[in-house]
């Protein structure tokens, strides 16, 4: 049901107590930014493999199941395949580079979100966004969970009433669309109630509660050091070929 596994990622981020979970969100965002910058500028496949492996090791050390996270972060493979076919030059290195970049980038981001509760990540991100976008980011994330539950119930109800059948794709499509339409109406009704609830609770144009961006030096130094090392390696290797 949940193709993007948002619920499980959210669970990992809030339930973990590891050194990586305790590190300040700014340190982890900095690590992720450095990793992604290294990924997009490097042409070295071994460096991409090192960044990917570092994320796997960090996840394992943080007691977040690495294989499950790797599976979630493998989703861009489908999209990269189109670029690999379009850029095919007869070598193995070009596909390896394109796949490596996309997978290392995706794993970096999922590692960040799997070890950092979303309000802390969004709190940082919101600082550089217009107010309405920052506020909507928080509310959207919360709304996804509400709608996922409702969508799950609707699809189950449709299945129970034989609304979804394996050999009738057109009937399925019609029933699924009706379920989505009902979900949309519920979502909008709920959003109107949500506004009233927010108003009653004294909403004053501010949902975000970012918290402290940095923790102690002891917890923050590792992600920062890893990020800077990866970026430095990518820069050195890129301009000293």
């Amino acid at each position, binding site marked *: 049901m949940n193709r*993007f596994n948002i619920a499980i990622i959210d669970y990992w981020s809030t339930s973990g107590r590891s050194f990586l979970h305790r590190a300040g969100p700014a340190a982890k965002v900095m690590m992720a930014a450095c990793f*992604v910058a290294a990924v997009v500028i490097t042409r070295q496949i071994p460096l991409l493999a090192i960044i990917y492996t570092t994320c796997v090791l960090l996840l394992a050390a943080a007691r977040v199941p690495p294989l499950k996270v790797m599976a979630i972060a493998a989703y861009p493979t489908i999209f990269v395949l189109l670029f690999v076919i379009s850029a095919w030059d007869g070598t193995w290195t070009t596909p390896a580079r394109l796949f490596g970049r996309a997978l290392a980038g995706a794993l970096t981001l999922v590692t960040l979100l799997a070890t950092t509760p979303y309000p802390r990540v969004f709190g940082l*991100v919101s600082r550089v966004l217009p107010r*309405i976008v920052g506020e909507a980011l928080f509310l*959207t994330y919360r709304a*996804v969970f509400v709608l996922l539950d409702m969508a799950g119930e609707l699809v189950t109800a449709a299945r129970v009433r034989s609304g979804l059948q394996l050999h009738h794709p057109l009937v399925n499509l019609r029933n699924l669309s009706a379920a989505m339409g009902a979900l*949309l109406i519920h979502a909008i009704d709920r959003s109107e109630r949500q506004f009233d609830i927010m108003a009653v609770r004294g909403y004053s144009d501010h949902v975000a509660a970012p918290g402290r961006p940095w923790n102690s030096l002891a917890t923050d130094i590792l992600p920062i050091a890893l990020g800077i090392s990866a970026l430095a390696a990518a820069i050195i290797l890129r301009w000293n070929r």
Partner: protein
Amino acid sequence: MTHLHVPDGVLPVWLWLSGAALAAAIIAVASRIASGPDFRRRLPVLSMTAAFMIVAMSIPVIPAAYHVQLAAVAGIILGPALGMIAAFIVNLLLALVGHGGITTVGLNTLIVGSEVVAGWAFFRLFRAAVAPGVAAGAAAFLAMVIGAVIMIGVVALASPQARTLHLHEMLAVGETEHHAAQPEPGAGPGYENLSTSRFAALVVGLGAVGWLLEALVTGLIVRFAAGVKPDLVGLAAVHEPV
């Protein structure tokens, strides 16, 4: 797959940086338009619609990689300004869970945002002539085609031909110098041999079924919504998209 989320590292840095800058400018303008006196009432609708797009993407329509994204539905409900913001939020959240690149959030926002705006515009154009469901379906199909054309255009900008033209015109680099600068096969960044025609054939070939599905689902959803809550899809004067 009705649409494509560009991952990290498959396009040149200058291209995704330009996309990010353009998307940032558009989001800034959209936020200014949307931050009117009715801001607080619009916020939950914006959030729920963006969340609805994400949840819709997680429902497989046919047992394959196909899933809808309902950009046109978002455009019809929210209008172009809030719709662009919804497209940005959806792409940002998806990038954070590994679905599409974080460096390409700007480009992905422009592509999905163009579908949102096109969906809104075509629906407004068609709704007086035909039933709301049909208008929404046609609008969704055209929006998906426009999104695909922009996607192919982005890849065309990254292709060697575009770069050669760019270099010759902007830097006046000679033919010999340019060829001397070309890396050996497999030694370049990976996107230096992108073939626009091959990419276009893949996107159209794989996407066409998805566009039809998207149109069908959008049409059925809007038909349902128009029957139950007509103000939601702009068929009553109560709700006016921004």
